[in-house]
């Protein structure tokens, strides 16, 4: 491999004079610095060109963009040669909102917008203070009202009919909103000097982290009725939400524990010297510093949860991925699953990419 020997930040004796056309100079240093590198560039260009041309032919040139409602014959004609993007306008309402009553779908749409607004506000450093928690509580309450209805003249929609993107966002956001305080408690418990509390916290974290989320979700969907008194049962979505909260709590606890370890001992001692109680010491002195340390890994954990909510497909909850998979059961459109998956992948990608960019910008500016 030539790559490692040509690390960009290595000192390289540049024998060539730095003159001439800047474009050519850029090409020479970045693409054709040596003969093997030049060959590599040409091979890569050839492969890339082949891939791009193939994709353009399939995805754009030969693609079918629109068909009359519920008629996939035009798509079937180009099957294998061109993409059938017509399935997206045909099915997008179902993919995005599932079986939510069609005329009321502005409500989940508004809920999605609220979620996005909430996320973007939370990225603003100037807003990182206690009021942000109230903003979250208010926004989540508003979203619940929008989704359920039953008040202010909105008709009631039971959560069995929720589906699509709002469900994904709800599972991820509520998982974080409840998992975060849980994670803080468990992280404090794991660092506590009280042996019983410490061992309970360790047991919880290790048990949850030791098994796959799939088996936790199975447990929530199959075993939960067994755990409860006869006749008592709660909704499937809520059960999955509880499993995700417990899962999130264990992973967030480990991230927060890392932050707690990074707070210098002097801070604890200073808080003790001021005579602060355990809870006031942590609330006012230790946790604000600890959490600031770990915001980038917290964002990364959140990206992971956001993706992991898709696992509820396995227990049959209608999140974005499940609605996508259900949309292509329709015999007329069955063969065009790749297009639907690409569409849904793009939605997930936009959310996760935005978050990972944000996490990277935080890492770059941290400490400032």
């Amino acid at each position, binding site marked *: *491999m030539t*790559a490692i020997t040509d690390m960009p930040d290595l000192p390289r004796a540049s024998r060539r004079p730095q003159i001439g056309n800047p474009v050519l100079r850029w090409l020479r240093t970045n693409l054709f610095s040596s003969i093997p590198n030049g060959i*590599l560039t040409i091979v890569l260009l050839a492969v890339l060109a082949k891939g791009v041309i193939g994709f353009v032919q399939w995805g754009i040139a030969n693609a079918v963009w629109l068909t009359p409602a519920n008629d996939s014959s035009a798509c079937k004609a180009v099957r294998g040669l061109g993409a059938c993007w017509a399935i997206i306008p045909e099915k997008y309402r179902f993919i995005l909102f599932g079986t939510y009553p069609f005329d009321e779908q502005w409500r989940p749409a508004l809920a999605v917008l609220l979620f996005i607004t909430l996320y973007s506000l939370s990225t603003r450093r100037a807003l990182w203070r206690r009021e942000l928690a109230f903003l979250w509580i208010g926004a989540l309450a508003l979203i619940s009202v929008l989704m359920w209805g039953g008040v202010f003249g909105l008709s009631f929609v039971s959560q069995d009919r929720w589906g699509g993107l709002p469900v994904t966002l709800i599972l991820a956001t509520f998982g974080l909103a409840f998992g975060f305080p849980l994670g803080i408690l468990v992280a404090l418990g794991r660092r506590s000097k009280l042996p019983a509390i410490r061992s309970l916290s360790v047991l919880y974290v290790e048990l949850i982290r*030791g098994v*796959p989320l799939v*088996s936790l979700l199975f447990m929530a969907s199959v075993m939960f009725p067994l755990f409860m008194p006869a006749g008592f049962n709660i909704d499937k979505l809520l059960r999955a939400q509880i499993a995700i909260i417990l899962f999130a709590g264990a992973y967030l606890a480990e991230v927060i524990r890392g932050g707690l370890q990074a707070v210098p001992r002097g801070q604890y001692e200073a808080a003790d010297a001021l005579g602060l109680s355990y809870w006031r010491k942590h609330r006012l002195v230790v946790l604000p510093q600890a959490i600031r340390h770990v915001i980038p890994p917290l964002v990364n954990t959140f990206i992971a949860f956001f993706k992991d909510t898709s696992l509820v497909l396995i227990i049959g909850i209608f999140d974005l*991925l499940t609605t996508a998979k259900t949309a292509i059961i329709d015999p007329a459109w069955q063969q065009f699953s790749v297009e639907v*998956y690409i569409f849904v*992948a793009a939605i*997930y990608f936009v959310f996760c990419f935005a978050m990972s960019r944000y996490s990277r910008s935080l890492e770059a500016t941290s400490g400032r």
Partner: protein
Amino acid sequence: MTSDDPRPPPRRGFFGALGPNELKGLFWQVLVVGIAVAVVVFLWSNTVTNLTARRITTGFAFLGREASMPIADSLLAYNPRDSYLWAFVVGVANTLRVAVIGIVLATILGTLIGVSRLSANWLLSRLAAVYVEVLRDIPLLLQLLFWYVMMQALPAARAAWRPVEGVFLSNRGLILPAIPIGVTQLWVLGTAVLGFVAFLVIRRWLVSQQMRDGKPRPAWPFALGLIVVLPAAVSLLLDVSWTIEWPQLRGFNFVGGLTLAPEYFALLVALVTYTSAFIAEIVRSGIQSVPRGQWDAASALGLRRSFMLRQIILPQALRVIVPPMTSQYLNLTKNSSLSVAIGYQDVVSVANTTLNQTGQAIEVISLIMAVFLTISLGISFFMNWYNARLALAER
């Protein structure tokens, strides 16, 4: 619960020996443990009541009963008339089959991509960055479904793609030429493994000799002799045949060769590509963590490039790489349970079927936990041992 108080408490009488802090701590512990115990007792008694109502007897006796569940693709011989216990073992073997091969392939691919991201070739490093970014930001389950659909969209066996002679890719999966391994072949392979172990011992001795007098001693003749020549001699002596079995199309399917079923292949591709994106980032940051002065110093000593990488850069980079790599390996193993979505029967999938058939929820879930905790502990143990070997020897 102020337990961070560094001062030792003054000793007093019998109850006074517990200062106010200790009493508070005791109170909190009793409270929390009490709540935990109460919750467990509540859940347990409900479960027992519910199970009695459903006439399900607790215990692992059901493992001996006939499983009567089909397992299409398995490493170990399996028949639906076998017991649940054996079905479980087959499931574990299937999990390990995908996890072990997945870990090896993801490490290789991830390292290649991580190194490519650092390449001086702009195009290569950009392509690697796009690969990492795209694969990391799409849920694994979605990628898995995508690969599975792609596998099903492949041509039928008659029109299979042949990227290389003897390799067929069709909607029946990936079919590779194989060498049938019998007892005699195992003897030869066993000799090679023994030779490798002997080589490691000899190399260690050679290094200790070099430490003493500073003279480098080449190790490659030993490697050649022990790992190549010795097994070859055994092979000739025992007259072992190494005929390659080429897959052939008969009717609608292939005969001979090694078949990777579409489910297994899709799962393997999804796990390897997804995990390799994370490994690539780990490898990149590991290499970047080696200070520039180390490269400069090695060049100043006039060391050969390969020697420098092997002896100076890599050992330092590995120290940063190995700990996060452990959690990626664990993730890959846990993620292999997503196979339930496409019908590859790993341990979670077998357990799920068992649960639906018998209703033995607690036993089945505890078996899953036991299996994954064992695998996790195994991987952590190995990686911790490896990490301890690499750790900086501080003076």
